[in-house]
């Protein structure tokens, strides 16, 4: 009852799966090399991993890097579009929330509680136009 990867043995494109593992807020999530982070999360049964301003869950919407609904923090780098980033083995994904963001600092929302410590300092958030 959720999104899933076409099983490699049934796949008409005859692909080869190489397993990888990412962590999402510290929990290991299995994936396949070549998938985007959004693909890994969806195939693992997670349809939502971010919360909007009002606290409502969000996941993939546009799938091609336009809508920014699927933002995650990857290895400490904030505001990464999960639909645009290929998963790498060992990626530490932490979910983001805009629920408590100040209205004029949308890039500065704190990560969700329980997120893994960032291995590198987060870069400055993307500037938003007035």
């Amino acid at each position, binding site marked *: 009852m959720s999104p899933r990867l076409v099983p490699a043995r049934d796949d008409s494109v*005859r692909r080869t799966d190489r397993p990888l593992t990412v962590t999402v807020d510290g929990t290991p999530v299995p994936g396949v090399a070549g998938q985007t982070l959004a693909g890994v999360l969806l195939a693992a049964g997670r349809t939502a991993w971010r919360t909007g301003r009002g606290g409502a869950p969000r*996941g993939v919407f546009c799938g091609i890097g336009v809508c920014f609904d699927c933002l995650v923090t990857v290895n400490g780098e904030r505001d990464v579009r999960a639909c645009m980033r290929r998963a790498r083995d060992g990626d530490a994904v932490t979910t983001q929330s805009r629920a408590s963001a100040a209205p004029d600092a949308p890039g500065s929302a704190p990560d969700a509680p329980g997120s893994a410590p960032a291995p590198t300092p987060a870069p400055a958030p*993307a500037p938003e136009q007035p």
Partner: protein
Amino acid sequence: MKRRTVVVVGAGPAGLAAADGALAAGADVVLIDSADRPGGQYHRMLPQAYEARAPEAVQHGYSAFEKRVRRVLGHPRCSWWAGAEVWALERTDGAEAEAGTRPLATAHPEPATTAHPEPPATAPAEPAGARRTGPPTAPPRPEHAPPLKVHVLTPAPEPGAPRRRHVLEPDALVIATGAHDRVLPFPGWELPGVVTAGAAQALAKGERLAIGDRVVVAGTGPFLLPVAVSLLEAGSTVTEVVEAAGRARAARGWLDRPWELAAQGGKGGELAGLTGALARHRVPYRFGRAVVAARGDGRVEEVVTAAVRADWSVVPGTGRTTAVDALCVGHGFTPRLELAVAAGCALRPGPSGAPADVFVDVDDEQATSVPGVFACGEITGIAGAPAARTEGALAGWLAGGGSPYARPVAALRRSRDQGRAFARRLARAHPVGAEWHGWLRPDTVVCRCEETDFASVCAAAGDPASGEARVAKLATRAGLGPCQGRVCGPTVAELRHRLGAGEHPVDPAGHPVDPAGPGPHHRPVAVPIRLGELARPPEPPAGEHPEQPHRPAQSYLPVEESGP
């Protein structure tokens, strides 16, 4: 003599054809795309890591596409910048970057050397659309006048490092940035599991991921067909395809003048194949219905559809609820215009005449109003891949210095005109009905990023103090979130127009505001750039730095040639 340099932004059908054309004309080409593999949305390729042995199984027209990719990316004069984003264009002439500030002019570079662009795939018949200009007569553009500085971000050399900045100053720029799905809001469209038709297609074709088990595909336009078929192919059950256009209208649009369809690179055959696949899977295709709400606890669980009239007003008492675990929606496309707007290209109103329904205005040779800047593909009109390829071939050839009098150019122009006729026909068959806002409720989210609801948009439109668009934007915050109005921009503009807050009457000085103004497409920073990246100096220009990303895509090109 120094060879001409052409930067092509976008490696979809239009951009690849443009690169091909510019290479054929003898130019050096830098082809830039934000994805890590060429093809754009139409030819979305599988990840290299999948090592797919039969990638053609999910691709329409794969062999011709693959041949072109090999020819272009393997060309010694082509640099392929994968995963790179153009974040700004800077005009070098000191003029204000404002659309429509210059008369439409034609750029005619040096006459052709030897090669010719690829002739159009289809034998051109009668020109189906009127051409705006006769034989090209405009004087050549002054040499050594790069039209723009192109600011590019390329991927970090190793994970975790900042992306690199580059500034290119080409002799000509071809913008082929394509379009993304337009989705009209409805109650519950922000629930997880509701995705754009393009997202479902990208995940199925590009990653082999089925978005759900029981899926409804809804909206308007022929794109719903391949999306439904991609889902079926990935193993989903498509419970129904819901097309808001009436059956008679869609049939008229599609079946009138079938020779036009045949001229569009086999669109007729493609259509038959897709409808056949739906029939085999017994997927009902319902005309004159629309998704008017999605419901669920934390994710979409059911979809409410209703019969709609020609203007998309809901027929009372026709609502029906369907259980789903995913919903894919597309109400046409929004061209990605930020770079064209940043370049200062004049725009023209689209077929609907709705505010924000605008495209790049190009002349008979795909030249924009800015000398040296060409545009092709969906940013000049939504006409499909074959038309985009033709426009790209024309734009690239001329941008690369090819002669406008070369014999294949005339054929390309005719084919392009047929493409434009096809675009008009698409627009006629699948217009967005004016009364769609009837399915909004006061608390329906209109701007997904800022969660601005319909009531707030209505209140701002009715308030004289916030009648001006900029004030309304600040008051409601619609369009101020991370996506910068890419999703809600056309919707908010249209709603405000309907609600009487006329978006383009007069400016504060009393001058009439251009109805084809950039509107929500004005984004001087085209993609987000981190302050740390901005602070770094740009890398030296090509040729002066050994680490310049030059043809990195070669790694994926197979060593030996295969195929015909």
